[in-house]
């Protein structure tokens, strides 16, 4: 209820006690640490990352040797999550796949956030023709349905016989291509409203140069928003990658990703009889993405309470 909050706020505001001298960032950090849900989200993400990157070091099965004698064995003491149709240890593969899935998610996020921020900020700052061009391209990309666009790109990759080692990088590019327009639009909107604010008009009055205004006064104000968008974007990118790889249009075997491991479910027998092949990677995606989203939401509360949606 508004009145309670405003009364509280008033009561706090009117306080004459000297405020703690801490920066906004450390205040935000303290607030974040109080949010149990967000902290546990972060903990899960860290755990998944550590297990995926460090786990294989402790696994005796990293060589992925094909062992026909161990085909499709259910979970056991030796193979906690069983073995696949080539006799490889599923747990080890899930961890190795996690490395790729997390990397793809992270890298494509970095790329789309970079593109989205740069283009959105430039469009919102310079307006006019620059804005027109950038936003028309963004509109165009937003009009074309994302999944078919990704499918076409995936099919192009397959037909051009791109080596599987490189596909991973191209998949990152593809995901960023689809993701940046939404981000750019949001950043641009923020930019337009920031421009009109008093402190920016003060900067104009002071006669600051464009680049200085853009990089020292405007973009820093967008950083909380960017951090939040970036976090939530990783989850989305991991999900998109898994869909593509599941349909055989993303990262291809033998490079394992969580998505292409679930591809086992496309085979009737594996789907019905060998659920240990495809359920663990699915659960991994789910756990990772939910943890990222929970953490991202906590960040949003702390960094930018206004944009809570």
């Amino acid at each position, binding site marked *: 209820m508004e009145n*309670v909050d405003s009364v509280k706020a008033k009561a706090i505001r009117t306080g004459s006690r000297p405020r703690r001298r801490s920066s906004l960032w450390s205040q935000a950090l303290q607030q974040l640490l109080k949010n149990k849900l967000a902290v546990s989200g972060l903990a899960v993400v860290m755990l998944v990352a550590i297990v995926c990157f460090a786990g294989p070091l402790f696994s005796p099965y990293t060589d992925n040797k094909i062992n026909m004698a161990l085909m499709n064995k259910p979970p056991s003491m030796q193979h906690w999550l069983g073995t696949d149709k080539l006799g490889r240890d599923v747990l080890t593969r899930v961890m190795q796949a996690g490395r790729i899935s997390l990397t793809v998610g992270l890298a494509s996020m970095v790329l789309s956030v970079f593109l989205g921020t740069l283009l959105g900020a430039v469009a919102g700052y310079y307006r006019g023709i620059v804005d027109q061009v950038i936003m028309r391209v963004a509109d165009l990309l937003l009009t074309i349905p994302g999944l078919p666009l990704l499918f076409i790109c995936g099919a192009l990759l397959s037909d051009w016989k791109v080596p599987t080692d490189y596909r991973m990088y191209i998949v990152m590019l593809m995901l960023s291509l689809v993701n940046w327009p939404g981000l750019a639009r949001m950043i641009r909107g923020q930019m337009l409203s920031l421009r009109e604010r008093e402190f920016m008009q003060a900067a104009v009055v002071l006669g600051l140069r464009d680049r200085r205004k853009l990089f020292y006064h405007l973009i820093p104000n967008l950083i909380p928003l960017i951090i939040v968008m970036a976090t939530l974007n990783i989850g989305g990118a991991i999900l998109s990658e898994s869909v593509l790889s599941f349909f055989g249009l993303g990262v291809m075997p033998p490079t394992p990703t969580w998505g292409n491991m679930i591809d086992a479910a496309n085979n009737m027998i594996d789907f019905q009889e060998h659920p240990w092949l495809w359920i663990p990677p699915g659960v991994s995606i789910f756990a990772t993405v939910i943890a990222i989203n929970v953490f991202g939401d906590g960040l949003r509360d702390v960094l930018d309470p206004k944009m809570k949606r």
Partner: protein
Amino acid sequence: MSILLKIDRLVTQFPAEEGVIKAVDGVSLRVLQGETVCIVGESGCGKSVTALSVMGLFQGIAGADIRGSILFEDRDLLALSRHELRAVRGNEIAMIFQEPMSSLNPVLTIGEQLMEPLLEHLKLSKKEARKKAVELIEQVGISRPEQIVKCYPHELSGGMLQRVMIAMAISCRPKLLIADEPTTALDVTIQAQILDTLRRIKEESGMSILLITHDLGVVAEIADYVVVMYAGKVVEEGEVTRLFEAPKHPYTRGLLRSKPVLGQREESLYSIPGQVPDLLALSPSCYFYDRCEHGMEICRHREPALGEVGERQRAACWLYEEAKAHA
């Protein structure tokens, strides 16, 4: 005259991150029938919280802790069930707020919003309620009432909306009208009109008004009795003429001095030095101590009680306690 509302040692507090905020700290006051009582004080002094506590608008809100008693015609409002309280709200006690622009629902027409309490409390039929709504609008001095009922809030001015709020508040002929800074958000000329409307309706209906304000001009205009609050406590109270003529508490004096008077230009406008204390870090003392020009040693560690300082005038200040002790 009989007592309509009697607030006794009301404490309203909220949990905050760094402790408990005592927004209202042991406030007692009474409103007689047909009387206009004004609560005056700076923002954050707890005057609005007092009003909202009477309305029970904190009920069920996480953490709000209300103690003491609020007797309305011998019923303790704090002891009523949700259901019973709802039957009182809008019916026997009505309230108008500071921001008329945001206090009306933007997606419902004026008519729909005016009809609601009539349907809820007086059990009128829709047809009767609509007719009554038009009458009410007329009563608060808005012309073209037939058109106004069909309007949405954004189509009317702030002054009109506050009149609509008044119409809504008086629709069930309440015995008490609580007005929380009803004129603060309005232009000066409109303020006077709204106060006139309030006064006229009060005279017509004989209801009591509990008016919350920080504006001493409004107090002088409308009040019979004044209660001055500071940091959640009542520091002085008395009949309006006495209080304005002979304010006792240094805070009340400060308030009166900081009001500019026409024809008496001074070098600079007076303002009370310092700030309202932090409601979280209070120890037993006079809370006004560090802003007071008469501060004494005792003020720092003992809390003054509200005591008689004149005919029907009471103040909570060691200056008078001391004087009494010496006499």
